[in-house]
């Protein structure tokens, strides 16, 4: 949340660190690429690719952020996405695209509800529950697909899917306008961060050139993020979500329906995963049973890279998206620079930690508590013991 007017804080590493990390990475890669005489790295197409590649993880990550903010945890997203993709691909042929999408999302929502209900009302630890559903839902996918890949035969359904997933939306004009608007409001309402964002976007757009267009999922991600950002930042819902995650007992005694909000988070996370699954299935009108396996860790990593707390009460969806972009910029960079595959893992790991370090250290220096790891200024709520 950056809506107070003290510049040092807003542009301080702690608040804006992850943005810096991304920019540094982008420009480093661009430099290397040009030094190696490769085609310009910051080309419209490449930026578009990065955004496109990050879109699914981004969508799930945004929902996961809300989840983490409420202090819960969802490992089942990847499986749920695969399931909804399977439902979509399995049904689209017979009942048509739109109904199939609807069915897929409902399935996802149902699983989210199940997760939430078990966690909230049976009271089992979210980790083990969603780990269970991770396995069970993946199993369900195997059962539904009979262990084989499914595909949509019907050509016009296929066409619809492609239209839904692969249409490329020209963004040059839109981008220019957006950055203009951002700059405008920034100047008008004195929102420095917004101004900076406007500038960056403008610069990148100009770099990308007039032909700049991105695939639909990027737009979906942008819209979803925008909604969630507004919801969290400016509405009572967001306030309550943060309160629930920050101190559930206090939230409860402030008359917030903790159960409802936690349940809501579970459903949201699953539906978002479901939507990601729909996009994934629509990408090629086909789905294989192992699709998206292991993506959950990437999703959570994106959120945490974005500075979301694993313990609830803090987090920002925009930063999560940046986190996702960071991760995919990295792999994209490896591919473009044709870096020895054996070294990619090593470097990726190091960069991830380094990126996290940038704002953690920055953040600490600002607060000047190196030992924050073990100084909780006030007694932790009694309930902590309960999770035993």
């Amino acid at each position, binding site marked *: 949340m950056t*809506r*107070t007017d003290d510049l040092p804080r807003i542009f301080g590493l702690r608040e804006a660190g992850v943005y810096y990390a991304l920019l540094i990475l982008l420009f480093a890669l661009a430099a290397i690429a040009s030094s190696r005489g490769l085609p310009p790295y910051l080309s419209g197409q490449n930026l578009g690719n990065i955004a496109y590649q990050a879109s699914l993880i981004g969508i799930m990550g945004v929902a996961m952020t809300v989840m983490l903010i409420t202090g819960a945890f969802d490992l089942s997203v990847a499986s749920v996405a695969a399931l909804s993709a399977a439902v979509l691909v399995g049904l689209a042929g017979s009942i048509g695209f739109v109904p199939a999408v609807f069915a897929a999302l409902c399935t996802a929502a149902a699983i989210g509800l199940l997760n939430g209900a078990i966690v909230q009302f049976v009271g089992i630890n979210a980790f083990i529950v969603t780990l269970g559903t991770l396995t069970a839902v993946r199993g369900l996918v195997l059962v539904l697909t009979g262990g084989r890949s499914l595909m949509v035969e019907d050509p016009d359904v296929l066409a619809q899917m492609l239209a839904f997933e692969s249409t490329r939306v020209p963004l040059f004009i839109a981008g220019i306008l957006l950055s203009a608007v951002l700059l405008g409001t920034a100047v008008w309402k004195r929102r420095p961060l917004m101004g900076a964002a406007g500038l960056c976007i403008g610069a990148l757009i100009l770099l990308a050139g007039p032909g700049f267009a991105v695939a639909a999922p990027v737009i979906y991600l942008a819209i979803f993020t925008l909604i969630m950002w507004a919801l969290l930042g*400016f*509405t*009572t*819902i*967001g*306030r*309550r979500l*943060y*309160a629930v995650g*920050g*101190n559930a*007992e*206090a*939230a*409860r*005694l*402030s*008359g*917030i*329906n903790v159960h*409802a909000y936690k349940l809501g988070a579970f459903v949201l996370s699953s539906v978002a995963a479901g939507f990601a699954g729909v996009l994934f299935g629509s990408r090629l009108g086909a789905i294989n049973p192992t699709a998206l396996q292991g993506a959950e860790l990437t999703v959570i990593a994106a959120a945490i890279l974005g500075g979301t*707390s694993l313990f609830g*009460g*803090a987090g920002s969806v925009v930063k999560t998206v940046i986190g996702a972009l960071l991760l995919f910029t990295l792999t994209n960079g490896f591919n473009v620079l044709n870096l020895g595959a054996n070294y990619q893992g090593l470097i990726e790991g190091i960069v991830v930690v380094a990126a996290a370090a940038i704002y953690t250290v920055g953040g600490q220096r600002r*607060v*000047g*508590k190196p030992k924050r790891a073990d100084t909780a*200024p*006030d*007694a*932790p*709520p*009694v*309930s*902590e*013991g*309960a999770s*035993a």
Partner: protein
Amino acid sequence: MVRDVPLLALSGVTKTFPNGTVALAGVDLTIQPGRVHGLLGANGAGKSTLIKILSGALAPTGGDIRWRGERVSWTRPQAPREAGVATIYQHIPLVPTLTALENILLDQRAFLRHRADDRQRIGDVVASLGHPFDLDDLAGDLPIGARQMISIAQALAGGADLVVMDEPTASLAGDERQTVYDTIRRLAREEGKAILFVSHFLDEIMALTDEVTILRDGRAVLHAETADLDEARIAETIAGRAITALGRRKTRSEPGPVRLEVDAVASPGKLAPTSFTLRQGEILGIAGVLGSGRSELMHAIFGADAHATGTVRLDGAEIGRYTDEAVAAGLALVPEDRAGQGFVPQMDIARNVGLGVMAQSGAGVRRVDAKDERRCAENAIRRLGIKTPGPHALVTELSGGNAQKVVVAKWLTDRTRVLLLDEPTAGIDIGARTDILLLVRGLADEGLPVILVSSEFEELLAICDRILVMRDGRVIGEADPNETSETDLTLMAGGGDRAPAGAPA
């Protein structure tokens, strides 16, 4: 004991927090063995900071500390503990997942974990405190009063030469306080230990301490023998202004209409069926000892106790059994455990205060007006005199009392129709307490019905119209403030039997 070498001597100790707050601006303090030294000051004066410094929990920014004459620089809590300083912190740091016994033994150095003699020894210490808890209870399962007693036992078990107590009695009731007083006297008089005692209760200070140091804005503004002082003088020095002592509230001529009807509200194992009504502008006090079920009653009324039964009606309309319905209906509860139940640590003052209004205006989605929120917060800061850099400071960076004020401020809205206060003045300084009580009285005069749980019977007598006395989870009687004295009340509440708090079978 050699009197001329003080046990502990601080000179010119300063502390500036990273966020710029100057908590201590040069404090001198000398502590003699065998004496009880009172440390007083308004909320945010710097008492806890000072204590954290001399217990090694915080590093001072300047000044020097001498222990038994030689200079020491304590940067980690180990050193002072080994030197012989035991500290009871204001925020009662305990490990919720360990038993009371384990918590008490936490700083012991032995290798084996469960030694019979340990259990024996600690058992005796706890016995001397009147068994406020069972050695095998999980700290996390105990109410705040019991946790306070654990940390006292912890400090005593170490056998230190200097016992530092930061508001040890803030969340205790009559009986437990008495045992704490007796303990302190025993330590000082018989065992010749030095005690540094922080409290906002002037009667305690007068009764217990041999000398007092008073802090204001991080400076020691007064150091004198207690004998040479009187409550009024101390109060003035603390607040830096004259304090109007609370006169008793004159019973209001015409009793208003009944607003709140509590009908057979009960909670299995904790609270026997309880019924009473609350009138327009009435302040109903609830007296009781630790574990007598006052908080349970509050929670039951507020719909915060899932097992509670019975009905609560506000202006004739029945209120649902969930907190959100209760709050929407206009009930407001200030809980007893500010850290555990009161505020959201990650949120700044404005947002914490904002939670109240937000919940009261229903579950719907609305835009939060940051400016408005900020204005409310600034209001509260002014109204309750919260000591803070501004409305955007984190609650965790406030002093204990100021944090408590934030929790109270949360419900001082015009949508509140019944105010439930559970130990609202815990840890609040004398000046602010008077202000808050006057504020509550004022609200009542404007017609707001209030239920006030307090272990400060003086407080109850001062501002309540009626007082219910609870023991072992049931209401055992009612007292009229005008013909009841503090001692009567204490007797009623203590009720002879000293059985540890527990459920009525």
